[in-house]
């Protein structure tokens, strides 16, 4: 069964109205900001963003904000708890008649992978279990980016970060596998989850539009190609984001009540094309080619898609 978009079928349907404005001090070519900008076009302005510490800390650096919505800042580990507080307060106001029901606002957590995969995991698990009605937007750049690119549980095998350098003992750089946060979330059976990529804007817009029909916890894992941390020229952000999907490394999928559908099945080009674009994988090709490490990455991708087909 192939997945069909119901609402967003062509680029000209992307709303022209902006809800994340220019002028943030985030890096040029930030894939996370691009995903958020597209997402906000569907979410609108009646939103409270609960921002965990991370790169997006820089979104609203006083006295400037790029958002035409509200913004609450929390520690890395407590954004879902913050979201619970805001949601409860809104519910109380509605119950008391002080806020008309049709003027309700959405509660959206903004968190990086360090927060999502690591520090806020218990807080998130609690919020999903309590069926908190919120969106969880994770901009995943596979490292602790804002502090200078350190290893996070999202860093994939073979990537070089400042705390996983390529060394004599570990010539491939990071030896860990990327934590599968999608499956950790899915084990909680939330009503809606999806992975998105900024280079697939219609897929992204469609998923945010669909999610509105599902009250409860909603996860969005956004591929945040990171020129600063992954060491590529910012002009290649769209290429890196596209190749991640085309090589099968970043599967575009959604899960409704735990039922997974792949929204785009790529022909799967060799992962090398994706790796070669980025400085964080350069040591796999120079000065000597690390055949084993490249094969390892390819094998992981192949076995993922074999399971999908089965």
């Amino acid at each position, binding site marked *: 069964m192939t997945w069909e978009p119901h609402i967003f079928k062509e680029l000209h349907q992307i709303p022209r109205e902006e809800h994340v404005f*220019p*002028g*943030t001090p985030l890096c040029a070519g930030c894939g996370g900001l*691009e995903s958020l900008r597209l997402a906000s076009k569907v979410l609108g302005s009646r939103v409270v963003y609960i921002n965990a510490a991370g790169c997006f800390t*820089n979104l609203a650096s006083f006295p400037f904000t790029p958002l035409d919505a509200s913004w609450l800042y929390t520690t890395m580990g407590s954004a879902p708890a913050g979201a619970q507080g805001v949601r409860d307060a809104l519910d109380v106001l509605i119950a008391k008649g002080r806020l008309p029901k049709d003027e309700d606002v959405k509660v959206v957590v903004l968190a990086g992978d360090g927060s999502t995969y690591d520090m806020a995991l218990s807080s998130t698990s609690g919020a999903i279990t309590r069926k908190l009605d919120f969106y969880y937007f994770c901009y995943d750049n596979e490292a602790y980016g804002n502090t200078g690119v350190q290893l996070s549980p999202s860093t994939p095998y073979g990537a070089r970060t400042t705390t996983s350098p390529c060394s004599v003992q570990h010539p491939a750089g990071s030896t860990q596998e990327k934590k599968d946060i999608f499956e950790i979330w899915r084990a909680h059976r939330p009503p809606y989850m999806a992975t998105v990529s900024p280079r697939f*804007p219609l897929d992204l817009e469609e998923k945010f539009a669909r999610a509105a029909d599902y009250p409860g916890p909603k996860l969005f894992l956004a591929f945040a190609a990171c020129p600063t941390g992954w060491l590529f020229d910012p002009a290649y952000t*769209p290429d890196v984001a596209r190749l991640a999907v085309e090589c099968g490394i970043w599967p575009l999928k959604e899960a409704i009540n735990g039922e997974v559908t792949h929204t785009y099945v790529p022909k799967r080009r060799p992962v090398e094309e994706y790796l070669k674009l980025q400085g964080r994988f350069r040591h796999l090709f120079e000065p000597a080619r690390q055949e084993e490490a490249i094969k390892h990455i390819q094998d992981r991708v192949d076995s993922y898609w074999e399971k999908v087909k089965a």
Partner: protein
Amino acid sequence: MVSIRFHGRGGQGAKTASRIAGTAAFLEGFTAQDSPLYGAERRGAPVSASTRIDRKPIRERGVIARPDLVMIADASLIPDPSARVLEGVDERTVVFVNSPLAADQARAQFSIPGRVTTLDLTGIALEHFGKRGAISALLGAVAGRLAGLRQGSIREAIARELTDLGLAPPVIERNQTVAARCFEAVQPVELDVGARQAMAVAQLRAPTYEPPTKGTAGITAGPNSAIRSMSGWRTFRPVLNPELCNGCWLCFANCPEGAITIKPDGKPAIYYPHCKGCLDCVEVCPTDAMTVERETEAANNT
């Protein structure tokens, strides 16, 4: 003691340049200290680093308040008050500016009180590497020359620092060659490292507190970040040729900043004060309607 302060934008290589200068001095038997100013290491954001070189042990720590030499990797930082590029610069300070302008012109245009020398490092890098990238080796070599270090030690320092960053030997070699050219090309100005008049740089100002009803009005205002200009971040600017544009909106959908808007006729338009120059729009354009132009200093204000 020679105190060198480096200023650049994240990604340009100011931090590595300060390390190259420090390592080169160390290799020549000096005591050396190099450290970047801690901050969010974001591409395009103002970055600063300090290098101290002396025969004696160096007791001073922290950011250099009264530099003997200031290395400016990006001239568009000079008017930015948050970058504090000219802080502590007096008529005795030597100021290097990465700019195609002649020294006198740069001195007048940016109102630099110190003695100025210039070299177009970005131009040289583009000519030799063919693409934008870090100019750390070039900047480090120029700093070394101005500080009186030898070319051989700078060459070795570049190898050490760039190897640390994981660069491949051929890339390092190319950097060394181009850096050597910059070392030769820069017009040296003798440093004046005599004792500096003590100057009160740190002032403690007691903040005045407003009642919350008065003081927080600005926080609840709408999206006000759009009033800031991002033009200084660009090395290149995308230029749209409307005749080649097929109105597909890919550039509009892929601009991380939202600097591209759609006009009533359905065609895109770039608003330059909001453009950081990432060039994602150029990369996604299917009809090559977007081209790239090198940013000149005069154009930086728009």
